[in-house]
């Protein structure tokens, strides 16, 4: 992981002090609510349905065990609503049918960050100080600025990697942090960066997607995509540069963002993302960016051209950890040991097949701990679980973990010889559901139980589908499927990119759900990035599990041997799936509904 310098550490502490200053001025009435809001947002403090929400930045998803322990402390000691707030929340959500609203827990997000839902704003400055003690913060996790940069959960360890993107991600983190010119853009601005052939970070769905590539001469550079985004108008990004020399990335992004800051729409927040500007201007936007880039380099002097020495300094933090204290076991011995353990325990065999991925170092594996299981919402971990997780990270993964885009936690440095020991410990902790990339490994936002923006709840829908699909044989038989659930069109649950997407909508004050099919996040399995298509009028919450089942049964009826859900859908088309989904309605969509 990146080793924070004295400057880096001090910077985070000063930012925490600045938040305390702003909080105190707000409490003293010197800062109006409207003036404080954009400031607290740029430190990750929202005010949600019932209480503030804190979004903690996890730069490109990398977390240390020490950071996990502090997150556990925050969950345990601070993630607690005032009694009146909680009673009110329980009453209102209870009327909707939510039986519980958990407290004292953290939530892993699709942007590799961590959220808390109940910390009173009055305690926010203390929490920021605590976070700063382990170099953490909420800088630019919200607001109309350059957000925390995300990356491939397997960055630096993937077998299909061209070049490690992490040093670039860190350099861009520094460049974007408190950038004076780009703190009040027309709208939020998200960057994702990968260096592998497979896209595990949904880069096409970001305002800027960066692919580290090699050109024909073997030089490292970037393919730059711009103008991707979800929301009301889902548009995959377009390539603006096929190859940009690696040391020009900050200069180029300065051009991309400056042109957007000057010309992006500010009259309508739903048309303010860069995707709308790129769509409206097309080649003219590209030309403006290239002209501005030329000026930055040739006239302004290209101040942010990355010197080799600076790249080397940052990259030196990302060397693999020393594994000298681990026992040396031959590959043959490991294979035989794993085979015996898998023969003796079919669940372990499933887990090996589903949750364990190959690694650049043949003695190591990348292991996904699943946070998708009964009884807790997707991506949730309570205080004790976070502490347990920190213990596993220390014992098996050299103290480092990664938050994944799919809301799980990946351990990047696990010895193959320790897989069974890890499995045993993870299973005891409840992190070993053998379901990675299967139906129940779904993405879901916090939805209407917590979020002020949501039109409908996500968690009960996720729960109902999880309950219905508990048979491991059935899940395996259904194979890899991306099920994504969002509680509103802001698309935090990435419903547009689900092979099956579920979107909460509000009709006459009631919760309804639109189902889409055929979306892709751009992964190898899913194909080129594309939004899903709606199957028909929206469904009631009670109908949703039946609709999903009808769609999945249609797949089983129509699939060719070994064909995945998404491949079958693409081959046969949407019609049979739509027909099945609409037939699963309890009440025909167009029939008058009895009061």
């Amino acid at each position, binding site marked *: 992981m990146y080793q924070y310098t004295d*400057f880096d550490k*001090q*910077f985070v502490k*000063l930012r925490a*002090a*600045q938040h305390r*200053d*702003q909080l105190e*001025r707000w409490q003293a009435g*010197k*800062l109006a609510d409207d*003036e404080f809001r*954009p*400031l607290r947002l740029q430190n990750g403090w929202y005010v949600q349905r019932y209480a503030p929400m804190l979004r903690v930045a996890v730069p490109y998803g990398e977390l240390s065990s020490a950071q996990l322990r502090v997150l556990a402390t925050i969950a345990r000691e601070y993630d607690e609503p005032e009694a009146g707030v909680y009673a009110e929340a329980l009453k209102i959500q209870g009327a909707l049918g939510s039986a519980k609203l958990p407290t004292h827990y953290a939530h892993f997000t699709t942007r590799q960050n961590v959220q808390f839902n109940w910390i009173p704003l009055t305690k926010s400055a203390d929490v920021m100080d605590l976070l700063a003690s382990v170099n953490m913060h909420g800088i630019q996790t919200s607001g*109309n600025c350059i957000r925390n940069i995300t990356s491939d959960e397997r960055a630096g360890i993937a077998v299909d990697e061209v070049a490690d993107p992490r040093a670039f991600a860190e350099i861009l983190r*520094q*460049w974007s*942090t*408190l*950038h*004076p*010119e*780009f*703190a*009040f*853009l027309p709208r939020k601005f998200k960057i994702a960066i990968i260096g592998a052939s497979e896209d595990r970070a949904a880069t096409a769905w970001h305002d800027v997607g960066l692919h580290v590539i090699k050109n024909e001469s073997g030089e490292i550079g970037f393919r730059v995509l711009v103008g991707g985004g979800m929301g009301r108008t889902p548009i995959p990004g377009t390539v603006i540069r096929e190859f940009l020399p690696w040391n020009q990335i900050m200069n180029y992004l300065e051009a991309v963002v*400056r042109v957007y*800051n*000057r010309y992006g729409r*500010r009259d309508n927040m739903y048309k303010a993302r860069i995707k709308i500007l790129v769509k409206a201007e097309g080649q003219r936007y590209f030309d403006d960016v290239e002209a501005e880039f030329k*000026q930055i380099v040739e*006239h*302004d*002097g290209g*101040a*942010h051209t*990355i*010197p080799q*020495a*600076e790249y080397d*300094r940052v990259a030196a933090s990302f060397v693999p950890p020393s594994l000298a204290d681990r026992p040396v076991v031959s590959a043959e011995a490991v294979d035989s040991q794993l085979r015996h353990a898998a023969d003796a325990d079919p669940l372990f065999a499933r887990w090996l097949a589903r949750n364990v991925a190959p690694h650049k170092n043949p003695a190591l594996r990348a292991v996904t701990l699943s946070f998708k299981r009964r009884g807790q919402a997707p991506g949730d971990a309570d205080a004790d679980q976070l502490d347990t997780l920190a213990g596993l990270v220390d014992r098996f993964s050299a103290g480092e973990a990664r938050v994944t885009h799919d809301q799980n936690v990946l351990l990047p440095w696990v010895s193959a010889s320790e897989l069974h020991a890890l499995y045993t410990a993870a299973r005891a902790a409840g992190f070993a559901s053998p379901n990675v990339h299967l139906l129940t490994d779904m993405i879901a936002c916090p939805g209407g139980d917590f979020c002020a923006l949501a039109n409908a709840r996500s968690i009960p829908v996720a729960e109902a589908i999880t309950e219905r699909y508990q048979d491991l044989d059935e899940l395996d038989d259904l194979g890899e499927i991306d099920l994504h659930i969002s509680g509103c069109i802001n698309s935090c649950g990435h419903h547009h990119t689900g092979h099956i997407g579920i979107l909460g909508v509000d009709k006459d004050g009631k919760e309804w759900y639109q189902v889409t099919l055929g979306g892709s996040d751009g992964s190898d399995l899913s194909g080129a990035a594309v939004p899903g298509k709606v199957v028909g009028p929206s469904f009631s919450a009670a109908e949703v599990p039946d609709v999903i089942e009808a769609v999945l049964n249609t797949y089983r009826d129509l699939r060719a041997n070994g064909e995945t859900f998404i491949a079958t859908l693409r081959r046969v088309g949407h019609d049979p799936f739509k027909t099945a989904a609409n037939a699963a309605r309890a009440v025909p969509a167009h029939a008058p509904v009895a009061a």
Partner: protein
Amino acid sequence: MKIIEAKDHTSPEGQAGVLVLDNTVDPQTVSLDGVSRVDLNFPKFTDGRAYSQAYLLRRRLGFAGEIRATGDVLIDQLVQMSRSGFDVAVLRAGVDIADAQRQFDRFSGFYQADAVNTRPLFARQAA
């Protein structure tokens, strides 16, 4: 950065050498001959177009006169205004100037180069 109260801000109306630029204007398309002060406006403090205009004036065009921030100017944006090339800010009425100086003293440095400090942290540290 010079901070002035709204009451001390002289209207640019009819003043020689003062240019008022609307947020939609590209500073690279106007003549700066005889201009000693450019007023840029923040219609809302969350509208950040004037930061890019100030950068272009100061860094791209080498404008050496005064760049004045007007409109919805609050103390929490003063540091970034200064870094973007503004050297005078007219605080919105009712804002406590005493709280402003603290914001300038807070950070010892920043990562990026800007319109004023033209070398990023890595270049300053390597020197």
